[in-house]
């Protein structure tokens, strides 16, 4: 028999959206099995400038929580996003779009990519992303609602830009409504036993005990790192960024439906629109003084920046995300490079792996091993996606030259090699990024495959040209009939869903 009494009290120590997302999910999924969820809330670490630019997967976690998306966007004054545009402000390479959707459509039953590679070799000069309906919709500022035709064509998805403060507060209200208990603390002391954590001491006074603990305290990793002493596997060598400036600027009159990342000679800058403001993030290396970084940020943004603040960034992974009776979530377990906004994705990965392995008795060594194995591989594959961006860059400047020399994992090397050879994407278990994501990234950075799947040679060149024209026409026609992004942002809170 299960022994729910063995793990009845779950204590989450943390702050902001990661802690409250965890609380909502654990309460929703395991409340019925007798789990009681308490959050020890630490002082917020996010500011007006912070935004979660999420991956499409978040929608399914929200659906599990029965979150009304229209209402969430209206309440938090967030926006939708169809992906990111990567622009080279150093002037050496063409921009590219990493869209949350596939590119092209099957031709004569075969994948699109090999047809495109062959067309290029035959001298047809059409950019890969022009065949991406999601990227095209983004360029035209329209949200894409798939109908049957579009679903046959390929897949398309979206994420959100959620301002961090209102999103965290929104989740907190939801958690409290659903029965999560909360304590506030500025400082947390930990009482240890041989089996892990026995309890917490809040601000040197009140005690909170628990059977199981989630550390969502962020980079400081109060429980997993500091109290339990789990070591870090540093990814410092793989990433040139160790400083990040956060600031905000005036909102766009019409918020674009995508993020934008601009590469400058000494770092990069990301712009993410919400309805509140334009969230600006400048990532650079500490060999640039703060004053110069601020100037670079303002120049790259082309905006007047407010409330700029600098934070350090030290990417790496705790070698065990689950130690004893404590699981680290998000930054507490793994700090990513800021490039693709993976903070919330790290939280989601942790939760999704934890749910089906959550202890059913006091003995859970096997669950812990399985969790640590899967989460490690999920984190490392996401890291590789980020490393690829740096390792393959063709931008000008010392920052980027150094980035090109960063160590690359054997898995990533293999992936780049087989893509360069044939356009074949090696796709491992536990990848957060789809094959379509990898195609956009690799082609965007100029990895043009040297050959193609020979199956597409069955399609004669004239037919190939005709089919490619047909795809472009289909995309144009479909995108023209979509409603502008702004229409979805004007929706009345509590009003109709938009049907996804």
């Amino acid at each position, binding site marked *: 028999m299960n022994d729910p009494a063995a793990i009845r009290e779950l204590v989450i120590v943390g702050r902001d959206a990661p802690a409250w997302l965890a609380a909502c999910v654990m309460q929703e999924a395991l409340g019925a*099995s007798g789990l009681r969820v308490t959050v020890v809330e630490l002082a917020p670490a996010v500011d007006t400038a912070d935004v979660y630019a999420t991956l499409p997967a978040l929608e399914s976690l929200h659906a599990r929580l029965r979150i009304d998306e229209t209402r969430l966007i209206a309440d938090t004054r967030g926006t939708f996003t169809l992906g990111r545009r990567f622009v080279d402000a150093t002037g050496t390479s063409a921009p590219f779009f990493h869209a949350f959707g596939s590119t092209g459509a099957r031709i004569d039953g075969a994948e699109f990519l090999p047809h495109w590679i062959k067309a290029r070799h035959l001298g047809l000069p059409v950019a890969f992303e022009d065949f991406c309906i999601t990227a095209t919709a983004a360029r035209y500022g329209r949200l894409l609602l798939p109908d049957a035709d579009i679903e046959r064509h390929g897949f398309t998805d979206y994420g959100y830009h959620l301002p961090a403060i209102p999103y965290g507060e929104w989740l907190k209200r939801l958690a409290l409504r659903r029965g999560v208990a909360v304590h506030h603390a500025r400082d947390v002391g930990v009482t240890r036993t041989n089996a892990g954590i026995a309890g917490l001491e809040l601000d040197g006074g009140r005690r909170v005990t628990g059977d199981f603990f989630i550390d969502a305290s962020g980079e400081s990793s109060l429980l997993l790192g500091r109290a339990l002493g789990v070591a870090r596997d540093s990814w410092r060598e793989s990433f040139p960024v160790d400083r990040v400036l956060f600031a905000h600027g005036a909102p766009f009159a019409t918020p674009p439906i995508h993020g934008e990342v601009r590469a400058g000679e000494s770092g990069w800058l990301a712009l993410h629109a919400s309805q509140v403001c334009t969230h600006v993030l400048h990532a650079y290396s500490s060999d640039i003084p703060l004053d110069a970084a601020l100037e670079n940020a303002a120049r790259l943004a082309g905006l007047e920046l407010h409330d700029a603040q600098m934070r350090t960034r030290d990417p790496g992974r705790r070698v065990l995300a689950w130690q004893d009776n404590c699981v680290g979530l998000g930054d507490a377990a793994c700090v990513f490079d800021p490039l693709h906004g993976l903070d919330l994705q790290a939280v989601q990965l942790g939760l999704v792996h934890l749910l*089906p392995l959550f202890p059913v008795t006091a003995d859970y060594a096997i669950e812990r091993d399985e969790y640590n194995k899967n989460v490690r591989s999920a984190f490392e594959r996401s890291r590789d996606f980020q490393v690829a961006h740096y390792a393959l860059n063709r931008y000008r400047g010392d920052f980027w030259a150094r980035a090109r020399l960063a160590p690359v994992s054997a898995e990533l090397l293999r992936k780049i090699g087989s893509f360069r050879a044939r356009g074949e994407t090696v796709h491992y278990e536990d990848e957060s990024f789809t094959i379509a994501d990898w195609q956009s990234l690799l082609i965007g950075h100029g990895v043009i495959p040297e*050959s193609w799947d020979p199956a597409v040679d069955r399609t004669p060149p004239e037919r190939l040209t005709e089919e490619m024209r047909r795809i472009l026409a289909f995309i144009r026609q479909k995108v023209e009939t979509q409603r502008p992004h702004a229409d979805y942002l004007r929706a009345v809170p509590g009003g109709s869903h938009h049907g996804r």
Partner: protein
Amino acid sequence: MLQSSPLHIVIVGGGSAGWMCAAAAAQVLHPARYRITLIESEEIGTVGVGEATLPALRDFNELLKIDEAQFMRETQGTFKLGIEFRDWDLPGGHYLHPFGSFGQLWGGTEFQHHWMRARQHGLEPAPFEEYCCAVAACRRNAFEFPDLKNPHSTFYGYAYHFDAGLYADFLRRWASARGVRRIEGMVVDVALHAESGDITGLTLKSGQKLDGDFFVDCSGFRSLLLGDKLGSAWEDWTHWLPCDRAWAVPCERSDDFTPFTRSIAKPGGWIWRIPLQHRTGNGHVFSTRFIGEDEARAALMGQLDGRALAEPKLLRFRAGRRAQAWKRNCVGIGLAAGFLEPLESTSLFLIQKGIQDMLRLLPSPEVRRADQRLADEFNRLSDQLYERIRDFLILHYVANRRHGEPLWDHVRGHAMPDSLRHKLALFRARGHVPYFKDGFFSRDSWLAVLFGQGLMPEHYDRLADAVPLPLLDQRLRELHARVAAHAARMQSHAAVISRHCGEPAPIRQAAS
């Protein structure tokens, strides 16, 4: 424009592997860019007693745009919904591994957890297998084509039993009509390039010489090119899978016309039974460490449920694989690359998957030389598939309670691969079966065998507690009734075969 001369692909060996390869290549590749030659020898016979397959074979036939009814008529094919394992856990026990799912996801949580919870809370659910439509159909020797849009009860797929020799003949005609050149002959010499070590050509017994750009080794266990000539090392797995021989014999068809393969555990191995339209294929897979050849032969002949139609043939094999299935400009397909006993009907699947990956990664006529980066990816995919199938096969052996029988004591006591031990521990603890993106074997397949072999988890996933018990009880009853009703209205396998693809004459009665 692309104007390179066609790349010449030489396939060494006929049989299922060779002709599946030739047919797929002829269908997928452009004749102006790839030229295909197959060398086979009539001196080397094929076995042709009956082959059981996996549902993926339907994709292969679809790729070739083969008409199902015609294919089944020409290969004496029948339908297969799964495999019945008898006596594997304990003598007298039996279970089915179906090509279908058990139950449904409720609240996003897998069915086995709901079922185990129902048991633990005294709801007395029906046996696990009764929540699977494919199993219910097998129990009634019934068949119906699955309706994917409206599954009526639970999802299932189907595969075939057929005569592998007839299948190879069928594909030989098919491929020859589409430009594959067939050369009769025995390969006696293989020439390598002095610097690169690539294969440049072959010499046949007749003295004929044949040049090629890319070579596919379908020579079976001899592995003439990949093993013998290029020295891709053999990785032995017989410590996990000790069976090394099989006797195979056809017998007359009986009344028991099952839409499933049967596998019966024996003291020194196991016996297969594959129903075809015109006869039944039988075989005894055994380990010479534990039983003699003569004794194994007698056990097989004593088991037949119809008159034997030929003398039994002895096959020799070893479980294992080549360290590199693709080396230089040569790919091994089928036995030339590795062997896993036919316990889960994976032989043709391994061939099919190898062919599909190979065709996608072939050298281009512009470059001509095989690309190491692509060979590496082929080998990664191949290794992963072999290891996953291997673990699944070992599971059948290690989870047995046939105490006192040397073979079964040996496999139960032997150290298993770490990957399998971990999976078993997770299942025993809480019914958890890890998910693979590539989905092979699927979670439902693992569940069928884990439960079938008598394992029962101690606990279930707490996520299942989200469904109130009275609702769970109601859902289980409804689903159980729906599965039973669905199977009850299916026609018999024999009737479907005779209507779909059978001989015009009435079904022959069994010889008594």
